[in-house]
């Protein structure tokens, strides 16, 4: 079962992803509300998530910086970047994100990208 870490500063967005991903059979192994918390939880976890869903505009540390730091720890980590800022796509991909979705997106599109990554494993 594919495991996921959800990173977004809005609780209602975290809950949305969690509700839908769990219904679709994914294992949500953690949530974080800013980039720094995501980095800390990622570094401390023995069982790394298969996929990280990463927002950009968050307090303390944004999604691009968090992605860069996580990729430094594990260059093979798969990050799906999701943001309402479409202009940040290039930065996100340069930081190491393998996929980008502009908010709001169809949840089927997220699932499609999750499946694509799961099949690569």
């Amino acid at each position: 079962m594919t495991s996921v870490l959800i990173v977004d500063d809005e609780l209602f967005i975290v809950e949305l992803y969690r509700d839908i991903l769990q219904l679709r059979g994914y294992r949500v192994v953690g949530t974080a509300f800013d980039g720094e918390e995501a980095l800390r939880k990622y570094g401390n976890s023995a069982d790394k998530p298969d996929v990280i869903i990463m927002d950009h505009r968050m307090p303390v540390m944004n999604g691009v910086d968090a992605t860069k730091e996580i990729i430094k720890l594990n260059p093979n980590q798969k990050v799906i970047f999701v943001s309402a800022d479409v202009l940040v796509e290039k930065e996100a991909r340069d930081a190491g994100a393998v996929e980008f979705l502009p908010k709001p997106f169809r949840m089927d599109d997220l699932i499609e990208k999750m499946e694509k990554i799961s099949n690569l494993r």
Partner: protein
Amino acid sequence: MTEMQVDIEQQKQLAFYMDMLGHDILNSNQAVLGYLELILSTSITDKAVRKYVEKAVSHIRTSTILIENIKRLMAAREADPNSFKPADLMAAILRSERELRRHYPDKKVSLSISPRIDEAYVLGDSAAENLIFNLMVSIVGLDRNEEIELSLMLKEIDCGGRMCWSMTVEDPNARLPPAMKDKSIDAVYQQDGSTAVKMAGLLFVKMMAVSLGGDFDAHQLGKTEDEGSTFVLVLRKAGKP
């Protein structure tokens, strides 16, 4: 601080607030859209309930487009027109046709294109592509039927000494407000606030088309609003990238 500096600072502050508001609204739209999709994916047996949910999806998508349009217009205002890159017109039209089905899950929209042109490029990059989608969304929004047939015609024209592509879309059932019978879009918007609210999508198309060096207008096909409407978008021709 000079008057001009104060003005620039105020504009920057406004842009910042608009950006923050837009971001938060898009986040809320994400949640609503996600849960609506969740409801649609369950086995709703009642056709009427499914229809209501599909209508809600359309409205959320429209709300999203409105926010994105504000962001795009603000970006276009600051852009140098000479920096625009070519956009593939036919590809944008075909993509818009596909996206329309997602946008209006409760309607059946078909598009006939004449002639189909292999190579047609316009200036404006993703802004031009988005403009075409916005135009289609606005037209379908003006048509009350569930089955909608649009005719799209393309031709090269001279526009003020430059070569342009003219894209005319006709919908025999799209109803423009009576005030638009013999007036241009901008004149109607300035005259009647309620019309402006109802047709914000068309105003965006006009503003963006002009900012890309082109133009846009819409008229009734016949003498009454029941006889359909025609929409003409003109964009500057570009060479193949």
